């Protein structure tokens, strides 16, 4: 009961079920494996753990090969909406690769600070307050190669000198450095940097950026500090200050290497590393993958092979069990932030009751919604996946109610059949009728998988064609497009229902073959308000919710 109370205080109320980690370890004899299909790859790993259950129900876990890394956690972990959203977020944006014989990192890749903070807090809720984190920012040096950024760097340099940063060269030395030839600058770099620059020089696409290299080396340290301070500011703005043991570190890549295509363009990515957590990578991924699989397959009990006792148990079927339900009309008519600002007033949906459902209207767009939105594990997992894989720029999800953020849209990107299936099933619970289905969908193929795609054409005797001077447009050579559509539907059976809504295939810069689902306009705020409140303002949801524990849809 204490645990439940604690969970309720910390996040959206009413747990979904619980995980018994002691049972998982005991029934597995400490040998934990996971299989997670991700980005076209079956991620799998097995690790052996030692474990001990203390009299206070605290579970000590350590890798069998190294009892120096010890994790002490509760035996029972309550599953609540926040943890399920967290699982969805990690499935979408977390590091899942495992490397046999070497450490696999537990790291979450997300620039948007509210999401990163939410994930950080959920890690703490799951594995204890002693965890520490490193926030890593990676950026392309081209980002700094504009007059505005040069001005910002110069000002920061002055500030740093005033602050007493002693290893900065003088202004005169800096001027002289910038006049030096590239060769002499590279000569004095460490051997790893020299090797990187040699490799860099050989890449045809990067040669046009070589003119920035001297400037890059002259300002690299300042660029790094600039980004670290920016990150610190962004985190502070979300209201969650760093704990004393958290670190921020920035890494600036050679101009163009990270992917920026021209001066001033950003190619930033942010990572949240859980420090020292690598030994528990397998255990963590097992938890995450079993949460996803049981929800996708609507299984309420997950047992270790040859055991009858579940280690993960939902309170009911994950598609049906409802932790609480949101009073839809009241929430969207009254709750803070459930609309968009205009010049003179705050705009909300116009909502009409229509027998058993609600008709939402926003301008010319209409859709039907349930009178009570049921918070099932399925819906919560979808929210997490959407916040990771949705096409909406993430900052818009957190700013739409307070700022003019431009157009909003609902779209979902996936390469995994489970993600597509979860998205389509959850949308059916959130939106009623035809509009719960995507309006259309497309296939995207990264440049790396062009040879395989061209091979399809060679097998048929067709050719791969594409639109756009650089080949960035829709594919033709319809024999191949047809084959791709069939392959996608076979690989992601949930798409069968919307087979006729396939729009086109296109070749794109990077990534494995994947799909984009595009949803009808109108329900952006409806979805984003709930997602935002789960992460940043659960009390907003609690104020408009009913709590029929165990209510079934």
């Amino acid at each position, binding site marked *: 009961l204490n645990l439940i109370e604690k969970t309720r205080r910390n996040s959206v109320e009413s747990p979904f079920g619980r995980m018994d980690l002691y049972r998982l370890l005991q029934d597995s004899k400490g040998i934990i494996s996971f299989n997670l*299909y991700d*980005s*076209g*790859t*079956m991620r799998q790993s097995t690790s052996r753990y030692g474990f001990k259950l203390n009299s206070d129900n605290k579970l000590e876990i350590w890798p069998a090969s190294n009892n120096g890394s010890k994790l002490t956690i509760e035996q029972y972990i309550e599953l609540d909406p926040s943890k399920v959203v967290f699982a969805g977020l990690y499935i979408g944006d977390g590091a899942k690769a495992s490397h046999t014989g070497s450490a696999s990192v537990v790291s979450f890749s997300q620039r948007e600070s509210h999401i990163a903070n939410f994930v950080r807090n959920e890690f703490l809720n799951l594995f204890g307050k002693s965890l520490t984190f490193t926030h890593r920012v990676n950026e392309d040096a081209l980002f700094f190669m504009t007059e505005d950024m040069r001005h910002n760097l110069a000002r920061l340099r002055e500030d740093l000198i005033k602050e007493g940063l002693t290893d900065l060269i003088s202004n005169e030395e800096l001027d002289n450095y910038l006049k030096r030839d590239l060769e002499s600058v590279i000569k004095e770099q460490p051997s790893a940097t020299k090797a990187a620059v040699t490799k860099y020089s050989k*890449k*045809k*696409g*990067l040669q046009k950026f070589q003119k920035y290299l001297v400037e890059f080396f002259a300002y690299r340290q300042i660029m790094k500090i600039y980004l670290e301070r920016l990150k610190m500011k962004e985190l502070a703005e979300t209201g969650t200050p760093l704990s004393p043991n958290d670190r921020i570190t920035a890494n600036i890549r050679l101009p163009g290497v990270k992917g920026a*295509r021209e001066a001033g363009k950003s190619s930033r990515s942010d990572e949240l590393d859980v420090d020292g957590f690598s030994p528990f990578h397998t255990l963590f991924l097992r938890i995450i993958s079993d949460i996803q699989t049981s929800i996708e397959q609507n299984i309420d009990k997950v047992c270790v092979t040859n055991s009858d006792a579940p280690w993960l148990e939902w309170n009911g079927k994950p598609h049906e069990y409802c932790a609480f339900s949101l009073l839809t009309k009241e929430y969207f008519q009254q709750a803070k932030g459930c609309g968009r600002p205009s010049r003179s007033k705050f705009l909300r949906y116009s909502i009409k009751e229509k027998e058993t459902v609600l008709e939402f209207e926003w301008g010319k767009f209409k859709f039907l919604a349930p009178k009570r939105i049921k918070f099932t594990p399925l819906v919560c997992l979808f929210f997490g996946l959407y916040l990771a894989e949705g096409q909406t720029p993430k900052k818009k999800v957190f700013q739409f109610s307070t700022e003019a953020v431009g157009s909003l849209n609902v779209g979902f990107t996936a390469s995994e059949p489970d993600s597509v299936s979860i998205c389509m099933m959850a949308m059916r619970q959130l939106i009623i009728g035809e509009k719960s289905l995507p309006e*259309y969908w497309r296939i995207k193929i990264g*440049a*790396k*998988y*062009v*040879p*395989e*795609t*061209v*091979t*399809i*054409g*060679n*097998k*048929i*005797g*067709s*050719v*791969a*064609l*594409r*639109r*756009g*001077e*650089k*080949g960035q447009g*829709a594919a*033709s*050579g*319809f*024999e*191949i497009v*047809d*084959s*791709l559509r069939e*392959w996608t539907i*076979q*690989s992601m059976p949930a798409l069968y229902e919307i087979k*006729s809504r*396939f*729009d*086109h295939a296109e070749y794109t*810069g*990077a990534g*494995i*073959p994947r799909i984009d689902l595009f949803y009808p306009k109108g329900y952006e705020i409806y979805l984003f308000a709930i997602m935002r409140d789960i992460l940043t303002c659960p009390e907003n949801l609690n104020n408009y919710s009913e709590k029929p524990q165990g209510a079934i849809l």
Partner: protein
Amino acid sequence: MSTQTIRSLLQERFDADYISPEGLLKAHIDYFGSASFYSTAKGYSKKRLDYYVTQLENGNHVFCPSLFHCMTGCLITGQQIDKNAINRITDYVLSLEQEGGFLTISRKYLDQFPKLKAAKVSPMVPEVYSSYYSFFLLKILGTDIKESELEKLLSWIIAHQKSSGAIYNNTYSNTNESRRFEAEISCQTYFGTSLISTISQELPQFDFAESLINAKNWAMEKWLSLRTITSRYFVLKTIKLVSPEEISNVGFSEGLGFLSDRADGQGEGFFDYRLSDKIDEDMTSACAIGLDKISPHIFSTYYGATIMRIFWQNGYSLTLPHEQIKKLTKKAANEDGGFGMKVLVKDFPKPYGPISTELETLLVLLFPLMTKINV
């Protein structure tokens, strides 16, 4: 049906000497040691053709390459095609004519893609490859193509030859030549050259030598830069078609080294490309390929062996990879009677695209003919 057309088509497109269906069956028994590949491939071609004819009868749409390959498979195995089917296919192919060239499938196909259909520039345009298949389909079906229609097609092809010498339609696919896929541009240039060469024989009043030479010069220039067997094959075929005496200039040793680099280590034919050939298009740098999969294919093995055959015909002493062909064919025989290897992408469980194809099944039928060079 025109035996003469099939004979010249097999010789030119597939480097195979036409013989009677009985002769082909015997060649199979001699080469593979049994008639089983012949029988299954023959059955597959007919089954597919019947399916496509039914599709057409039901008002559905069929891709031209599929019709062309299974029809050719049926004809060389001596299968009776009823007149109704021939008329149905002929009418369908004639309906694909647009601006002088041919679409690859009926315009109505685009009805299922509303956004593409509404696009300013329609993707449903005649392409060189589809015009090739349509033209030769009509020829092998014995359609009498009027001189004015031939002139129209020829003019259309010539109009799509670029200053580089390459031949492709950039009305919809306006991708810069440097970024077009090498298999596409080399295949379409060969198909275009073949159309010009064939049609100009029927229209002797026109002189298209310059177009052919431009295409050949493009092919000569491209040869060394190409990374896939398919693209080298089509480029070599273009050179052979226009100026066979220049084949020796491509460099036989380099060409065989190129093939050797793409030979399957298990002795099962040729890969079309090496995984290490995969590059990031923008950065021109190598890709991470640790999780990628690759397989030898019937088409790449046929094309690789054809390149060797052409080298041999031009005086280079070599032995064709007969054992590799036999091993691969056995491995590529599928339960549906067709032939083809899977294309796999990482750990995606479903094969990427079709496994058996009409073209690869036809190539299996032709292996004993193409490889019959007495070496």
